[in-house]
């Protein structure tokens, strides 16, 4: 019994046009890297970028358009939109990052177990992955949220569970190639323990391709995580999480266009930068088998 559809395990892997293996980063990739460094700084030290509190309300200044006093305007409670976006970087990026890390760990574990756990284990795990892949990622995440309830931690777990089946497949395929390689045979021949061979030789080599895929997956995880917050299931309103801010601003589109524009621009800027860098890494490190 084969998988139902030949899912593209890494949909973007085929996207790059062939280029020399050691391609220099192009200008857009360099710019994207700079944006990512800036985003990390903003998320780590928001206080360096604004002296205004993201939660300080000021009813007199409610819903004012962008100006010298409020660069990106104010929301319906008079909170400074720029300060909120700056302070929102940490929750917005952190949920996506935790989800990606969880998904890589879970995918690696499942994939390795399937590749090395014997035929029965393999077919049980891969049938489970088939079932999970039959559900859209967001649908799976919503099912998890229904069980666990809303909240930031649960959102990260939900997004991770949505990503795990695809990642498990990648690791399994890689581990199956690696376990038949000469160096693994040599390590076994030298009398190394099974545990050592898996940890030192199979895991590091099977994980590489997944890490490259996960870079692009990080962008998708941010979109899904902020989407759950937008639906009111992730970070809750007082938090300046970008998806939650958009959900809030959606009610004031007729009187405050800026509330619908800037938080989304922040998400998109982050995801575009991550995708550019991720694809550069992919073009550089993906083994071209075809």
């Amino acid at each position, binding site marked *: 019994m084969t998988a*139902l559809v030949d899912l593209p395990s890494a949909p*973007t892997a085929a996207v790059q046009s062939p280029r020399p293996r050691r391609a220099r980063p192009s200008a857009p990739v360099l710019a994207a890297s700079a944006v990512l460094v800036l985003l990390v700084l903003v998320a780590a030290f928001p206080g360096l970028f604004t002296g205004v509190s993201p939660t300080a309300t000021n009813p007199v200044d409610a819903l004012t358009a962008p100006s010298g006093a409020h660069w990106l305007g104010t929301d319906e409670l008079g909170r400074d939109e720029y300060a909120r976006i700056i302070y929102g970087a940490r929750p917005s990026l952190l949920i996506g990052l935790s989800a990606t890390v969880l998904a890589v760990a879970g995918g690696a574990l499942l994939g390795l177990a399937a590749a090395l756990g014997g035929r029965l284990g393999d077919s049980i795990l891969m049938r489970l992955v088939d079932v999970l892949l039959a559900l859209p990622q967001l649908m799976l995440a919503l099912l998890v949220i*229904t*069980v666990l309830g809303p909240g930031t931690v649960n959102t990260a777990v939900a997004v991770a569970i949505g990503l795990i089946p695809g990642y498990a497949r990648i690791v399994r395929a890689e581990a199956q190639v690696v376990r038949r390689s000469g160096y693994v045979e040599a390590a076994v021949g030298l009398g190394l323990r099974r545990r050592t061979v898996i940890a030192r030789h199979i895991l590091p080599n099977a994980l590489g391709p997944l890490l490259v895929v996960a870079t692009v997956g990080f962008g998708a995880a941010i979109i899904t995580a902020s989407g759950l917050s937008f639906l009111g299931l992730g970070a809750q309103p007082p938090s300046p999480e970008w998806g939650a801010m958009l959900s809030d601003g959606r009610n004031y589109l007729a009187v405050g266009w800026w509330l619908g524009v800037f938080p989304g621009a922040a998400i*998109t800027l982050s995801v575009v930068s991550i995708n550019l860098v991720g694809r550069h890494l992919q073009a550089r490190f993906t083994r071209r088998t075809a």
Partner: protein
Amino acid sequence: MTRGRSIATAAARRLLAAVAVLFGAATLAFAALELIPGDPVETLLGPATTASPAVRRQIAVEYGFNRPVLVQYLDFIGRLLRGDLGQSYQLERPVSSLITGQLGPTAQLAGAAIVLAVLAALFSAVATAGRRPALRAAAIAGELLAVSIPTYWSGILLLTAFSFQLRIFPVAGDQGLAALVLPAVTLALPVAGVLGQVLREGLEAALAEPFVVTARARGLSQTAVRLRHALRHAAVPLLTLTGWLTGTLFGGAVLVETVFGRPGIGTLTLQAVSSKDMPLVTGIVLLSAAVFVAISMLLDLLYLAIDPRLRTS
């Protein structure tokens, strides 16, 4: 005769795999239901309730919560086989009628989005694969943007521009074609981005094949070679991806329907998730698994139509 038999065997195996996936999805949904912490009667009644213990007991008996898990599971599977998805906790109507009632608007939205996305991808890839460098670079940048923009933002931008500022399209609802335009474009954007990228890659690979030179030597124009010869080679990955992405539109619809205030499966899903209406969530999960399975079986037939090599092996 042996060939006929092998096709029949392949079809039977395929069907069996499809049934296995649906059965797995049903089991998964049941397991999720059991994993919800707390008393299902509590979930059913909601947070603000003054129901007496006697009423609670009666509800538990009515829904069968007091029976052993295995009996509940077999009962659940048995009812599924008869097409009974159960009762919604909150709306107190059969899940199947709730779903069929909301399927129309979502099917319209998803159908329009997929058609738009495929057309946009075809147009951009045929026009720019391996030629017109400036336009090609612009198309690539556009596709990167399309896959990176969250639909809940692009939807808000389109609403702000075309509904609130220019007042061309209605702000919400599902009345008529005008109300379908912005949601369909929003849902189509990321799909068009991915398809455009993959199709251009496929076309560029096909255009490097020797048969392209032969076709050009016969006097066909650049575009005719692309449409008649190269496109068929690039079509299989495009089809696989289109089918897979169509399945994911159920997820995308949750966000897009929320942004545009449209009724549909997405809105129903959000309502079910927010109120922990497990039978309804289960029904929707099974529906999306069934759609995925149906699409992948349809794809297998379409591959045979596109690629003659698959028919002989």
